[in-house]
């Protein structure tokens, strides 16, 4: 029987392949973020000094929205086409399979925006000194977003959408990520020290990594009953 690594690898491969098929080009997500960035000056005006102050927050918010709303459907499709049943009935540990889904999701949404963020920040006139903190923070933060989003997605599959309180359970977890993430960039851009904020961000991500796969797996076992 295949080892647990095999299940993880197979699922990761599958999701990346699907993402590749669907987007046609890997370039599409990049164009998407570039385009939204281009809309920001149209909305707030083209002055570089103003854009620079806004840049960290905007890039972070875009990253958050991009990951979050995609995460709502993280398990929905697998549920509808029956593939979720295979995940739950696999002899492999379910949390590991959930982790594979999350990592794939992060590679497809979080990583491209992290890699692209220096360019976007430059278009928004963010001072160069803020870039390392932006990239490091987004790398960690988008992973945390994907992990937390998986819990939300699993709950959606499980409990249906009728409960308005449910998003309120998951959303507050995003807030600390956003706060520390933007704080790190803003400080670094102002020439200050960002290591503290990044360390806290890392701690949150580590915690999410520990808790989310198990929480999501438990929700999924409940959820396949519909």
């Amino acid at each position, binding site marked *: 029987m*295949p080892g647990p690594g095999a*299940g993880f690898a197979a699922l990761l491969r599958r999701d990346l392949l699907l993402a590749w098929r669907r987007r046609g080009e890997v370039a599409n997500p990049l164009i998407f973020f570039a385009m939204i960035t281009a809309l920001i000056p149209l909305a707030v005006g083209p002055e570089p000094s103003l854009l620079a102050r806004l840049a960290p927050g905007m890039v972070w918010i875009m990253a958050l929205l991009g990951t979050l709303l995609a995460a709502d459907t993280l398990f929905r499709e697998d549920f509808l086409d029956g593939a979720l049943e295979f995940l739950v009935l696999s002899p492999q540990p379910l949390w590991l399979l959930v982790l594979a889904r999350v990592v794939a999701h992060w590679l497809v949404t979080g990583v491209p925006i992290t890699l692209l963020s220096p360019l976007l920040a430059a278009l928004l006139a963010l001072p160069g000194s803020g870039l390392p903190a932006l990239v490091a923070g987004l790398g960690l933060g988008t992973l945390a977003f994907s992990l937390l989003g998986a819990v939300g997605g699993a709950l959606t599959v499980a409990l249906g959408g009728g409960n308005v309180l449910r998003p309120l359970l998951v959303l507050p977890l995003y807030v600390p990520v956003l706060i520390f993430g933007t704080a790190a960039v803003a400080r670094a851009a102002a020439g200050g020290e960002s290591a503290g904020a990044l360390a806290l961000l890392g701690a949150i991500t580590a915690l999410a990594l520990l808790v989310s796969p198990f929480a999501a797996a438990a929700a999924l076992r409940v959820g396949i009953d519909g």
Partner: protein
Amino acid sequence: MSPAAPLLEFQNLCFERNDLPLFEGIAGGVREGDILQISGANGAGKTTLLRVLTTALSPAAGSLCWRGRPLPRARTRYLTELAFLGHAPGLKLGLSPRENLRWLGGLFPQRHGAAETALAVLGLADWADAPCAQLSAGMLRRAALARLLLSGAALWILDEPLAAIDRDGVALVEQLFRAHLDSGGAIIFSSHQQLALPGVKYLELAA
């Protein structure tokens, strides 16, 4: 694991929805070479029972044993020897049949390198690399059945395996069933059709 113990045995199964029992006191089992058909009207609970048997749903009462061991504990062992096929085929429409068999092979024990032949047996040789979204309903079902050929599972649990399958396909499925039973496997399935196989046992669910 006494050799005499049946593969799967279930006793006194009861499943409730909203505190109303859907079925009660269901008992039965399969030994090597056995085939059991669950029958009953629409809504009788066939799909639900099959999902209880796979452990996807937990019964309100009753017990399940795999090779003589009680099930919640022997679950991992059971799942490695089980191949399940539900109403929905569980294939990703964006991937080809071959790619689908490949990712499923990471999750379940699968014989190596046989994807080619399995798809050919089910008449999908020309479609092995087309996205599943381009397959017709019956071809999609055939692709899902191909997984059974690849798996070395002892027990197959199948929910309406004949849905959307044409007449030649039904004969083919009967042949596959026979080969599986002859090699010491067992099958539990639901269907509204009658199979031309000897020795099918029935479990009738009342609506």
